């Protein structure tokens, strides 16, 4: 695995850091492969209760590495799906990364400072919670570069913030700061840049102590019901409920009866 993705565990918190700061954390193929693998592993088992995705240095992530020769080796797992032809490689590694992140059955927090552009915006939007520096910048410059995104952002963004603001970002290529991202509902919270790291640590601790399987079920309901008609959404909710028996629920009941804070295990 590449040294440009750092994975650190602290109790139930897994911190994944994009570590190519000299290039604005632009992603290479080996970075995408490593990030995907760490995420997939975090989804298994009860140990990881909260994933934090962040960037080293000044930026969160400025996209994929712009120069093809800098992108490194195409992921071996996708070798048979690399099309030839004049318009370059398909965005399959990007799609696999975004899909894995979005469907992860654990809480995921994006901690954003500096720029989150293009694929960086895709990654931030695939996380559940965006905690951002007030002076961070969000945007999708692909349209202004004569490219278009094929990583699901055209699906996600209208549902995440409404079509009106999504068009502003995706079609105008306008960049907005963290405070504006909070105003339009893209960011959970914007904080002064100097406080970002401390706030992120506190939030991760809080989230990791929650009933994280209930959290995961709620997340599944939200995500999958974006595409379901009303009556089907109700049935989906029942089905999800019936197929998830959560140990923490009994602890929740006991804590309520005993008027104390619950001690959840994420089981």
């Amino acid at each position, binding site marked *: 695995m590449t040294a440009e993705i750092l994975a650190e565990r602290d109790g139930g918190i897994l911190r994944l850091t994009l570590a190519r700061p000299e290039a604005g954390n632009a992603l290479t193929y080996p970075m995408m492969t490593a990030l995907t693998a760490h995420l997939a592993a975090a989804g298994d088992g009860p140990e990881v209760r909260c994933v934090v995705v962040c960037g080293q240095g000044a930026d969160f992530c400025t996209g994929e590495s712009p120069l093809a020769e800098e992108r490194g080796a195409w992921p071996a797992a996708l070798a048979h799906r690399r099309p030839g032809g004049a318009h370059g490689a398909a965005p399959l590694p990007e799609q696999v990364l975004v899909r894995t992140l979005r469907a992860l059955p654990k809480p995921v927090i994006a901690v954003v400072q500096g720029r989150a552009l293009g694929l960086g915006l895709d990654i931030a939007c695939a996380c559940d919670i965006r905690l951002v520096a007030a002076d961070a910048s969000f945007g999708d410059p692909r349209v202004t570069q004569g490219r278009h995104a094929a990583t699901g952002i055209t699906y996600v963004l209208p549902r995440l*913030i*409404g079509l009106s603001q999504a068009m502003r970002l995706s079609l105008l290529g306008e960049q907005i700061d963290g405070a504006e991202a909070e105003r339009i509902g*893209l960011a959970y919270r914007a904080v002064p840049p100097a406080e970002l790291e401390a706030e992120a640590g506190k939030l991760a601790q809080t989230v990791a102590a929650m009933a994280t399987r*209930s959290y995961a079920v709620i997340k599944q309901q939200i995500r999958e019901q974006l595409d379901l*008609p*009303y009556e089907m*959404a109700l049935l989906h909710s029942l089905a999800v409920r019936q197929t998830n028996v959560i140990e923490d629920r009994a602890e929740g*009941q006991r804590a309520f009866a005993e008027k104390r804070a619950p001690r959840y295990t994420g089981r």
Partner: protein
Amino acid sequence: MTAAPPALLISRDGAVLHIRFNRPERLNALDPEMHEQVIDTLRAAATDPAVRTVAFSGEGRAFCAGENLAGGGRAVPERLRPRMVPLEIGSGPVLLHEVTTAIRNWPGPVVALLHGHALGAGYDYATSCDFRVVTEDCRLGDPRVHRALWAAEGWSYKITRLLAAGYTTKLHLLGEPLTGAEAYRIGLAHRLYPAGSDLRIIAGEFVQRLAALPAEAYAATKAAMLGELDRRWPVP
């Protein structure tokens, strides 16, 4: 021994049918019989031409703080058991589906007057109505995740359409209620009044205005909007 006071106070004010939760000693926590009575009341009102608007509100300090989970879970009367799904604890939310769907599909304007708390099932009722009137200090949200619970009555469908999925982070995943002022700012609430207001009085003109809207045009427009949320363009 005197009989317990009715759990719902139902009254008429012109063409407005007021349904007022009346369990102030438990912040109007709802139980299955209250859901059942709301369903029956809405059904009767839908065919009564004199009723043009339904307004939900709560007696005492809150609109509704959730479902009544006190006393080791919800006691379900035998006649309602077929409308509940047995689950690993207590009983399932089919009756809550029924009541929130009855509110959502009621043909005329339905408005929730929210003060104090509108949490859990109270939030489900509020987000099923067409309009929400709030006091600025009202707490509106879904704290179920903190009890290792979640609701299955359809909020996850509704809130992403009423607003956008971004707001689910705070409301549902982190279980942080909004204040009435925040709900108004982000467009979830339609009228905002100072803390301590009696909403039935101060919002009376707004509620009467809803009742004066042309009933057939309202019903057709509402049905089209709700139906077309689930349809693809072009609309047939």
